[in-house]
């Protein structure tokens, strides 16, 4: 019983807006259309949010993306209500540091 509830898959995030933090420190937001065991991820209508210390967040449209699992650090389910309330133009922060990617 418990085993089924434990399943640590991304199933619950399917077709939801998700934020993917990648191993090279990028923040990519898009609709989760699929994934596999290796955490390869499909994002539809993906946008990169480019953070900078001197200017607000720049949103760069990317389109349809397959992100290789090796390059995935976090997959976050976006609460769209909260997201709408964030004024990205006034958010300033240094970009995330990369995570060392083996191989």
């Amino acid at each position, binding site marked *: 019983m418990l085993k089924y509830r434990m399943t640590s898959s991304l199933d619950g995030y*399917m077709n939801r807006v998700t934020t993917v933090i*990648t*191993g*090279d420190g990028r923040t990519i937001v898009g609709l989760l*259309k*699929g*994934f*596999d065991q290796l955490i*390869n*991820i*499909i994002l*539809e*209508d993906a946008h990169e949010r480019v953070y900078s210390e001197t200017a607000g967040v720049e949103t760069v449209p*990317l*389109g*349809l*993306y*397959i*992100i*290789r699992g*090796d*390059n995935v650090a976090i997959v976050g389910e976006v609460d769209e209500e909260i997201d709408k309330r964030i004024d990205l133009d006034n958010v300033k922060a240094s970009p995330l540091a990369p995570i060392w*990617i083996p*191989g």
Partner: protein
Amino acid sequence: MVLPLSLLRTAQNHPMLVELKNGETYNGHLQACDTWMNVHLRDVIYTSKDGDKFYKIPEVYIRGSTIKYLRIPDTVVDLVKNEVNEVRRQQKDQQRSRKPMGRGGGPHRGGRGGSAAPRGGGRGRGK
């Protein structure tokens, strides 16, 4: 639910951008791919990490494990859905046509095995 490798397979003959872990990018048409995400591109434009060097290369084979991400045309995701729906439809048709055969089909039904083979199973994960 679309599997990343099915999407990639559907993107065959489409243009795409491949960025490697070392920051190099390769723009080209996907000729072939496999279940390790190894990709074979044709008519490629290579861009160096800092975007200061560009080369035209007729053909490139990229080992999947070196890839960071792939950017593919938006329309490809709809093609996979069509593909999946098509497979489902075929499966249903097969089931429907199989039912009346249920009685007395006997050993002759063995021949149907062939037509049943290309359904679902092979679709899931590339080749």
